[in-house]
């Protein structure tokens, strides 16, 4: 299955380089053609690939680790917290003074959210408390973002942040790619290495410990990994929701419901989803392009409703 997914991702990546309002840009001359493909489409395709991949992977990790099929960076507030931290870095001028401040702030925000959520799960109250914790984190992050905006001297802050929170990878340049890619790749490597322990962890922490897992360092490792991935992704692209929810769901049944085995396929499905969605928003006949995050939410939210209905009895009881 992974081979086919890899092929799909590769095809979508190439399509992403080929699709845009200019279509075949070389007809406009060498210089403009080069600028369109190298400076605009390549960062966009590469960010779609990486961000989709890390969102899918984060969804799979969180769902396995928190033992909850609804866990997703957007739904439970990890993206929102990363967004708040990135907004702070941006409007304080820190990001302008020190370029890496933006992804680093996003990572810190995401890691704090994951740690808070893990605390809620440790106290052992199941699905409902996790989701309520997510609601609370989302609400606090939204309120804090509004506060920072109210203090910003820039008159366009409100409009831009509502656009940014809607999620988009349009017109990011290579500089953004170079800034965020290393963090996302390191984060992915960290959690992929922990895959085999995720199966043990899905049986509960006590069971995992009895199987020889060091749950404490594993928790730190997963928090750091998800923080790196979601934080860096959000600081560049804003909130692209539901990818982390959909990707693991699409492949879970095919890998025999083992969390560890969902990681790599979820990453590939996530990359395919974001690359595909980003191509679709370019092709939709809207005068101004639809925001990528709006599109994934429009498609993803009904998926969440369906997932809730389908498995209602199974895990609300837990």
């Amino acid at each position: 299955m992974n081979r086919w997914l890899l092929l799909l991702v590769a095809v979508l990546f190439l399509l992403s380089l080929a699709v845009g309002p200019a279509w075949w840009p070389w007809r406009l001359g060498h210089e403009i053609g080069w600028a369109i493909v190298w400076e605009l489409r390549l960062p966009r395709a590469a960010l779609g690939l990486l961000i989709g991949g890390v969102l899918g992977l984060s969804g799979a990790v969180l769902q396995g680790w928190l033992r909850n099929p609804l866990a997703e960076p957007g739904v439970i507030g990890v993206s929102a917290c990363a967004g708040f931290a990135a907004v702070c870095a941006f409007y304080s001028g820190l990001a302008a003074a020190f370029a890496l401040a933006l992804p680093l702030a996003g990572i810190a925000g995401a890691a704090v959210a994951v740690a808070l959520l893990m605390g809620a799960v440790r106290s052992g109250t199941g699905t409902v408390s996790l989701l309520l914790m997510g609601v609370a984190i989302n609400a606090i992050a939204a309120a804090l973002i509004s506060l920072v905006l109210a203090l910003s001297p820039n008159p366009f802050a409100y409009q831009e942040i509502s656009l940014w929170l809607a999620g988009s990878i349009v017109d990011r340049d290579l500089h953004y790619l170079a800034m965020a890619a290393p963090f996302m790749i390191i984060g992915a490597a960290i959690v992929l290495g922990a895959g085999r322990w995720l199966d043990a962890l899905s049986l509960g922490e006590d069971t995992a410990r009895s199987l020889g897992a060091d749950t404490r360092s594993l928790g730190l490792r997963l928090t750091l990994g998800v923080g790196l991935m979601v934080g860096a992704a959000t600081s560049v692209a804003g909130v692209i929701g539901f990818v982390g929810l959909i990707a693991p769901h699409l492949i879970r049944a095919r890998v025999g419901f083992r969390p560890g085995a969902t990681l790599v396929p979820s990453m590939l499905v996530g990359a395919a989803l974001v690359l595909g969605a980003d191509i679709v928003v370019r092709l939709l006949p809207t005068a101004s392009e639809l925001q990528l995050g709006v599109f994934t939410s429009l498609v993803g939210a009904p998926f969440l409703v369906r997932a809730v209905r389908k498995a209602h009895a199974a895990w609300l009881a837990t």
Partner: protein
Amino acid sequence: MLAALPAAAQAPQRVVTLNLCLDQMALRLAAPGQLVGVSYLSQDPRLSALADQAAALAPVRDSFESILTLRPDLVILGQGSHASLKRLLRGAGVQVLEFPWATSTGEAETVIDQMATALGREEVGRSLIAGMREERRRLTWTGAPRGTAVYLEANRGTSGKDSLMDELLRLSGYRNLAAELGIGSFGRLSLEAVLAGQPDLLVFDGTANDNPARATEFVGHHALLALAGKTKLASVPTRYSICAGPDNFEVMRRLAEARR
């Protein structure tokens, strides 16, 4: 002269305006001391060409109480907003005047004319309008078409068909690329569409990056360098283009001065 006296006697003595664009007109029309408050936005030099003048007046936020403390006898607002505020003001016996959002210099003249009448300042209004007509006539490009232009504002926003900037570009001899791409009065344009359109003129606010904001980052995007050499650049501070009115001719002057 005598016939004008009753109207002057009825003219409002304490006027508050609550809309950036209406502020700009009132600041030009009102008699000394007649205008007691303008919206706080008018004190922001990035948005308001008359920020210095506005700074001498009370900055007003759109709350009933802060307006009442100025004891106005006339409050001027934009049409289609602040419905509950207007109701409260009328209930408190304050006269409320609403004007539509002007999206062309011609519409701005109509609003100026009506506001001048309401303020009892017809004479000032007439000369302001005559000055605008003269400037428009003088700055309108009459030579051969100058090609296409595109306006990039914050958040990759652009002004398409039937927008103020569309009129200013046309008067300056350019076709508006965004309008030709089917974008309405406000829309967003990707940089790829800008590059593909190969405009002859790129209009943006070159001062916008002074405050950190993602909205204005595109100004520094590398891809735009591909247009260097072919496309002329015109930097138009937002304060001259945000409202329809006399300031728009500063936009046209800058468009005329644009260099490669």
